[in-house]
């Protein structure tokens, strides 16, 4: 009798647990960002200006690699897309407080950022490259040349360029700017030796100001995975975005778009 009773009790507990697990799963799915996006019919994307990832053309329309990615994502989901331009330094806090559903803004995965957000699988890789002043950095041709205490390097605050300089050029002095254009301006006036930023911006700047600036070495000195960032603990959404990235990656669509924005300058007339 005792045996039968204990079996019944165990069965009841198991049944109860599975019912409970079902309801947890159901509510998780219902509360996932992806469900919310589908229900309301538009996706809110947080981004910040980074040429050529995302920028405003002269009429104020958003263009760039990230913009293409977000638009295609929305199209595949069957919803409209809404971009929310944000200052880079406040982009993660604004995601956490719910200003938008996802950051698609050329954000590199870092362990530090990963403490606050969840990242998808990478949909792009980027690396740091360097552009230097012809006179101030005369004869500099490798990374070690910049790792001296009298070398000053300008970067955009809060970017992976900042941490890359700290890691690879610990002896150099850092000068932080809110915007990359300010850093470039500082370089043009010759107050710093070089600017470190994600490729291809340094190369573009060297072409634009070929009389003053040069690229000391061609290859990038870091390799950084770029991913979407979403609020923590939303497996459903994470899975959806991961699958989407896998699909467009295998289609070759990502590479094609990347070539357009990074290896051609066909889009430049939109800014001129």
């Amino acid at each position, binding site marked *: 009798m005792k045996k039968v009773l204990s079996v019944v009790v165990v069965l009841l507990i198991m049944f109860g647990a599975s019912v409970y697990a079902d309801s947890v799963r159901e509510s998780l799915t219902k509360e996932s960002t992806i469900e919310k996006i589908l229900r309301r019919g538009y996706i809110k994307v947080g981004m910040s200006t980074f040429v050529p990832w995302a920028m405003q*053309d002269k009429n104020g329309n958003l263009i760039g690699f990230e913009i293409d990615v977000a638009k295609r994502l929305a199209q595949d989901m069957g919803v409209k897309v809404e971009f929310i331009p944000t200052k880079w330094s406040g982009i993660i806090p604004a995601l956490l407080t719910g200003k938008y559903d996802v950051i698609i803004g050329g954000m590199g995965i870092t362990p530090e950022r990963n403490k606050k957000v969840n990242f998808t699988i990478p949909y792009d890789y980027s690396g740091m490259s360097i552009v230097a002043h012809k006179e101030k950095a005369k004869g500099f041709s490798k990374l070690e040349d910049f790792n001296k205490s009298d070398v000053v390097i300008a970067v955009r605050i809060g970017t992976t360029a900042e941490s890359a300089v700290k890691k690879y050029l610990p002896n150099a002095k850092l000068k932080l700017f809110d915007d990359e*254009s*300010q850093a470039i301006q500082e370089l043009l006036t*010759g107050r710093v030796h070089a600017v470190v930023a994600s490729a291809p911006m340094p190369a573009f700047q060297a072409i634009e100001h070929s009389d003053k600036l040069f690229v000391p070495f061609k290859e990038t000195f870091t390799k950084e995975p770029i991913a979407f960032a979403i609020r923590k603990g939303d497996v459903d959404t994470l899975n959806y975005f991961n699958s989407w990235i896998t699909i467009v990656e295998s289609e070759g669509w990502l590479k094609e778009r990347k070539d357009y924005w990074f290896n051609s300058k066909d889009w430049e007339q939109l800014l001129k």
Partner: protein
Amino acid sequence: MKKVKFKRIDILVLSILLIIVFYVFYRINIYIDYHWQWHRVVDYIINKDENGYHFGLLSKGLFYTLKLSLWSIIFSIILGFIFGTFRSFKRPFFRFGSLVYVEVNRNIPPLILIFIFYFFISDQIFTLLEVEYFIRNLGETTREIISIFFAPPNLISSFFAGVLALSVFESAYIAEIVKAGIESVDVGQKEAAKALGLSKYQVLRYIIIPQASKVIIPPLSNQCISTIKDSSIVSVIAIPELTFQGMEMMSATYLSYETWITVTFFYFILTFSLSLLNKRIEKTYTLNF
């Protein structure tokens, strides 16, 4: 209007100023060897394609600054008058309430106020009230009108947060101006009005406010100009006003000098035309009393 007479010293000062301006441009050209590209700026103000003319990035920013300043000025004047008159009341509740309001808001930097409103009011309260959904669910035309006078749905909560923060900040100063104006009215005026049997409200409405206005209007118009200038701080919460658009344009084109000279000029047009308008208002107002 008095005739302006130039003396030797004025001419000297003016020429020194001109020399300084030219020297700055000269330095920019020589020292940093800057390639001016003014023709590219024009497209960011107004440009043309096969569909006709379009307002550029900067013009759109100017329009946002106008909207932002206008609403902030209206709300800050309303709040400022309420709290300013409260200061003159005898009841401690009103007196101290408004004193606390003025002191708290005057002693918080406007940038911090904007973050408080952005992260607290617009995130917590607007989300709770579902302001965004409410606006999205309105009819097409209503939504259109809201977009023109305020901002499109995706920006509406930041826009309101910006307007509120600016209004609250500026109203603290306006309250002081209003208070000073009311205090400038002679006590005898109030007593005489009371003796005539006017009610408290009537005393305020017909005796005090009209006389105080003369003292209030000049500093008040000054505060309005300040509001336009202060509105540039809301660029930190990414409202696409003039300063934010200037930064966007600079990030995209790297034309730092051209961008900021143009943005400065736009702000100058706004503030200068407002101060001309204010002069006219002051004149007509002082003539009427």
